[in-house]
């Protein structure tokens, strides 16, 4: 500070020197001022009774001290302790082990490969008739297809750029490909709380077999290989009681795969008296068989004759090619004709009403097809098979 570059006069320089002399005084004053402020703060807190606020319990301090030893973490707990933690899934409410939470949530939210996302969507659409906002989010997970713009924005520099086979990462973690019961938890069906009508609606679409382990229904289609038709029949009997006649594969549900197994029934449907019933192998049953089932006889007592089944298959196949799967009975035993007529007579009155009702009750996306089928039903059943005449009471 002693050297200055400007050419000042001697007065200027002496003035500067004087200023320099004052510098220590200025500093002292500043320091004194700050100290005084601090003193006032402490004095004030003492007088106001807030001085103790800063006090800490020494025992507490000790408790939270950081531990720095080999083999222990900072809390003093051993590093290799394998404590299991649990948490509650926000989606389904189940208690899941914390280490397995991520895979569970993936299936629970319907995002993994094996989760029954489509099935649970179907359930939601039929049961609640509301469409959820994140329907289109589901599209993200149709593999390989539409990639939304978020995907493309993803930076190119991450270790997860491509997705190699999942097995390489999930190698040591078990059960990625889960059992049927796990899958059905996608959108699990609370069948206990549902009314008969709701159960009928649901059971028309899904396999429905209740797993012993999880007490949940299987949400796969009626062709689910895991469960037999017998099981499906049992479930419907159990859930719907005597009204288990609604389980026909009728116009409401059009299986995209085409021909579909339909569960066995035990009584004529109150909705569709004219529609043929099928057995657990998909063969159309004679009215005799239908009646037998209604009486609660075991299935074995009412097995179809091979001849009958072959012809019924042919007929069905014919109808299928025309887009009809539910027309006409398969039996060609005349003896059963009268029996079937009587069986259906009681329900004939409501035939017309139920026919139209079935069309309107179909899921929105399948309206077209079912309407078409309705139309076909009327026409074709009249012309193709004379036996049908008895049933076609429209």
């Amino acid at each position: 500070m002693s050297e200055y570059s400007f050419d000042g006069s001697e007065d200027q320089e002496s003035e500067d020197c004087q200023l320099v002399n004052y510098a220590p005084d200025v500093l002292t004053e500043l320091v004194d001022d700050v100290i005084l402020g601090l003193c006032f703060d402490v004095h004030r807190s003492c007088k106001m009774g807030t001085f103790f606020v800063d006090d800490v319990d020494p025992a507490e301090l000790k408790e939270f001290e950081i531990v720095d030893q080999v083999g222990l973490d900072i809390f003093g707990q051993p590093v290799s302790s394998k404590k299991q933690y649990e948490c509650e899934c926000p989606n389904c409410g189940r208690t899941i082990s914390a280490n397995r939470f991520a895979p569970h949530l993936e299936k629970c939210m319907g995002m993994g490969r094996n989760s029954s996302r489509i099935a649970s969507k179907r359930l939601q659409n039929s049961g609640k008739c509301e469409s959820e906002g994140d329907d289109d989010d589901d599209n993200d997970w149709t593999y390989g297809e539409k990639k939304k713009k978020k995907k493309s924005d993803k930076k190119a520099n991450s270790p997860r750029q491509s997705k190699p086979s999942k097995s390489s990462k999930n190698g040591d973690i078990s059960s990625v490909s889960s059992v049927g019961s796990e899958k059905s938890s996608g959108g699990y069906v609370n069948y206990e709380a549902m009314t008969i009508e709701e159960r009928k609606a649901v059971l028309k679409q899904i396999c429905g077999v209740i797993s012993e382990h999880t007490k949940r229904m299987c949400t796969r289609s009626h062709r689910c290989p895991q469960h037999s038709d017998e099981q499906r029949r049992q479930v419907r009997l159990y859930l719907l009681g005597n009204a288990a006649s609604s389980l026909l594969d009728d116009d409401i549900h059009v299986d995209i795969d085409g021909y579909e197994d339909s569960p066995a029934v035990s009584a004529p449907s109150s909705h569709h008296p004219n529609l043929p019933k099928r057995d657990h192998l998909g063969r159309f049953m004679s009215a005799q068989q239908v009646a037998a089932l209604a009486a609660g006889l075991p299935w074995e007592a009412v097995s179809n004759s091979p001849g009958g089944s072959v012809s019924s298959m042919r007929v069905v196949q014919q109808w299928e090619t025309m887009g009809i799967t539910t027309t006409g009975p398969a039996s060609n035993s005349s003896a059963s004709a009268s029996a079937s007529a009587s069986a259906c007579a009681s329900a004939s009155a409501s035939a017309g009403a139920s026919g139209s009702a079935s069309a309107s009750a179909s899921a929105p996306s399948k309206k077209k097809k079912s309407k078409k089928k309705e139309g076909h039903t009327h026409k074709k059943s009249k012309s193709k098979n004379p036996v049908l005449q008895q049933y076609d009471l429209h």
Partner: protein
Amino acid sequence: MGTRAGGSSCPHVVALKESRGLDTFRIILSNFVYCRSPRARRLKAQSCICHDCGTTADRLHCCLDCVYFGCYGNQHIQEHAKSHRHHLALDLSYGVLLCGTCGDYVYDEDVNKVLHEEKYRATQGTHANGTVAWQPSSNELNLLQHNPKRRKITHNSTIGLRGLINLGNTCFMNCIVQALMHTPFLRDFFLSDKHECLMIQSQNHCLVCEMSRLFQEFYSGCRSPHVPFKLLHLVWTHARHLAGYEQQDAHEFFIAALDVLHRHCKGDTDHTNHHNPHHCNCIIDQVFTGGLQSDVTCQACLGVSTTVDPFWDISLDLGTHLVQADSQDILTAGFLTAGASAITNGISYTSTSLTDCLKRFTRPEHLGSSAKIKCSHCHSYQESTKQLTMKKLPVVACFHLKRFEHSTKFRRKISTFVSFPVELDLTPFMAHRRNGLDTFSISPGEMCPTPASNENRYSLFAVVNHRGSIDSGHYTCFIRQHRDQWFRCEDDIITKATVADVVNSEGYLLFYHKQLVEYE
């Protein structure tokens, strides 16, 4: 010395309040203690002098009953009080009342209130008008008196640290959460309860509220690890592209999390300008958003067109100087998906430093003849150079080292050692310093002739590391707590670490916090 809450007013103050009120007090304060104008300050300088000994220092006081200035050191004010029976005087440095008769400074709630008001008025618009110290109310004081067991976060305390359970390949999430939990700015914001949730319709889905809860969990003193299942569910709900049980990139998660937090700060009602960072003042933008300036210089007319884009992080290339450029090694490494060490040993670049990477990042680049753009100055298609510099520095700067290479020939992880400093100065990479200079070849000393200001100094506070190969690996992180202590976080295990551990680690995401933050 009374300890009654609410102050221990001496009877003289009470009498003053009843008789004349505190107006005189206020006038003296505003003129001689907390001056509001330069004129007042000049007046103060001229008149604050002891009437008896002429000193200007030594704790001057002003009598409340007459116009008298006296110093304390030489007992002048005390003598004045005795002789004139003027009990109360006012300290001219801080405005505290001295009762000469009682012989001590006295405090009163109403007096304190006036003091606060005058101080606030005087310091408005200046830096001194920042935070106000917390004074407990009588209720709070009562509570505190009855509950003496208090927890203080000392230098050696575990409070603020907590492990996070791995929910199944979620180590990437755990590391980012640890880094965010130890961001001082965010911590202060959330612990002072500043978040007001605007997600009225779906408050249960607000990720910012969840973050607030996480801070509470971390500072609860609980020692068992926290299970962040709710956080995972929320993130998967709001950032669908990240959802799914598989390993993810920590950097991607970081950006996605910031994005969701940023959106949720705005609430669920207004969606119009949520991508306009210039208008956003949410905590995320305040902390993480910086401005990156891009200057494109036309080679013909040297006209420069400038744009500033916001950024949340800077992704840095590691350089292209291969040590072992054996193509055979490269090809075989590309097909190996296991045995991480075998790959990384086969390929390496010369070890580099963060500052080198930053220099490279801010170096002017010729765009090439295939990328001619129309210059707005000379209106012709010319070759140009482009330079990126930092225009606005964020409070927290995140540097992402590009260690995962995806090119057409191979995918691999680059494990080159990158040294990074604990204290970083970003001044050389700022816009005003760099324009046009190819500073890659200039030594650091030449670049900054004047010492860098403190404004651009950053301190490292979190490092996220990746161990493994490009397909599978494990994330761990180092975080800084209590100023100088470092801790290693590996999911639910937290252990103490040294600075050397941190600086010698590989480094994938580096988090730096600005040292000096200005309050606006």
